[in-house]
């Protein structure tokens, strides 16, 4: 499931792009009108709905259900996003879904000249009237996001991509966004946490004091497949003395949280392997629900060869491992 948020300048073709995207992807389009007609109408009377159409300040008011309209919209949007993919136009959705790994945030802009021309044509206005309309409308968009979310709507760091429709039509812009979406599907991560996550993935491996170089190589293979890992996160007590003090424990090398599985590499001399095998056997007896997989020296070297780590490339088949 994914969410595409579209923020747009008035008459920038943002509305048309959002509609086309929803149509092409076969997903639900959520606009301000939809929210007012279908969601807010459940908790607001006619007067409230009128005010909600008119002023952003009203979204901070408490509704009949005890929530502010803003809180209610956020809750409904997030619930909807749990159930299906969405294209959301406006509503501060770029902020609401800023931490959402499967969201793509798009800003659609256009030069004043282009927007004025579109407004003139659409509403049959003269140039001055068109400028005034744009000014008022942009101000409303800006105020809504600032008032409700304390964010500057024009700050481009809120978006994955800004599209200038001066030189692009709706179809081209839609294709660009769909292309970006496909890329993000392969590497979902929230816009705001991007840098932190990058640091998390890259620097800890350099900072971690791996006991063996083989563990560093194995971490590299896991990174290659984008598999989350933790290095020696838990120690399992295996034997206790008469007083209940732990006298033997076992700390598997890696934990793969997505698979709830521990991995133990046994790449050292045989006499240590025997000792380690004993520990693993004990662990499996004492903690039958804990999944531990052991990689033996022979298998480990085959793994390195297959993945080309450390420039060892002897046997090359398909990419399947």
């Amino acid at each position, binding site marked *: 499931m994914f969410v595409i948020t579209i923020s747009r300048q008035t008459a920038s073709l943002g509305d048309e792009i959002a509609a086309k995207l929803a149509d092409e992807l076969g997903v639900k389009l959520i606009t301000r009108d939809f929210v007012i007609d279908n969601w807010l109408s459940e908790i607001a009377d006619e007067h409230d709905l009128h005010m909600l159409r008119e002023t952003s300040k009203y979204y901070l008011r408490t509704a009949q259900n005890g929530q502010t309209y803003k809180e209610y919209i956020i809750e409904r949007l997030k619930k909807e996003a749990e159930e299906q993919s969405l294209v959301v136009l406006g509503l501060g959705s770029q902020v609401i879904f800023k931490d959402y790994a499967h969201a793509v945030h798009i800003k659609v802009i256009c030069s004043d000249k282009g927007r004025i021309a579109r407004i003139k044509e659409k509403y049959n206005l003269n140039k001055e009237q068109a400028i005034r309309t744009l000014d008022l409308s942009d101000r409303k968009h800006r105020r809504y996001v600032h008032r409700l979310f304390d964010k500057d709507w024009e700050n481009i760091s809120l978006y994955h991509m800004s599209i200038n429709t001066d030189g692009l039509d709706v179809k081209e812009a839609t294709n660009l966004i769909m292309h970006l979406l496909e890329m993000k599907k392969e590497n979902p991560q929230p816009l705001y946490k991007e840098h932190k996550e990058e640091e998390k993935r890259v620097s800890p491996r350099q900072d971690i004091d791996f006991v063996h170089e083989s563990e560093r190589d194995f971490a590299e293979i896991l990174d*290659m*497949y984008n*598999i989350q890992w933790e290095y020696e996160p838990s120690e399992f007590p295996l034997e206790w003395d008469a007083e209940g003090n732990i006298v033997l424990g076992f700390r598997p090398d890696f934990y793969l949280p997505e698979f709830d599985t521990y991995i133990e590499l046994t790449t050292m001399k045989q006499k240590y392997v025997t000792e380690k095998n004993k520990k693993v056997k004990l662990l499996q007896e004492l903690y039958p629900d804990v999944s531990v997989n052991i990689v033996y020296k*022979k298998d480990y070297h085959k793994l390195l060869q297959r993945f080309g780590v450390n420039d060892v490339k*002897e046997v090359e088949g398909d*990419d399947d491992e």
Partner: protein
Amino acid sequence: MNNQKIGEKVFDKEEIQNRVLKIAEEINEDYKDKEPLLIGILKGSIYFLSDLSRQLKIDHNIDFLSIGRFQTTEGPREKVKITKDLDLSIRNKDIIVIEDIIRTGLTHSYIVKNLKPRRPKSLSLCVFLDCKEQRLVDLPIKYSGFEMDDRFVIGYGLDYEEKYRNLPYVAEFNA
């Protein structure tokens, strides 16, 4: 073809065809009122997929996916990514991923992780050779042709430097 590189036969043509027929019968039964989409992982799965498909009596579609590695300048030296994506949508469809061999399961965990967010109705794996002893992560393998040890084998889709895929049997590779 360098026949000296082709070692002892591990599974002959007849054994393979019998096993493929058995798997097809299981799939025919399990998916009798459905129309699954078989996704072949390129290139190793093509022979297994085409034989299996021809033995299926139920309606089904076919698509292909390819995974490759590319160099990165930061972080891990190489990353895995999809080099040929599906042509068909898998949303609300019953998916059977077809693969020639699964060893550690790392590649296939990547594939499953990639396909699941596309919201298929169901997702299972069908593998020709299953190297269970080398498995590091759990995978939803529903159909398995043969269990395999850690020998390097060629034929029936499995290659050595892109050769020997077309052998109608599986044999050890003489390095």
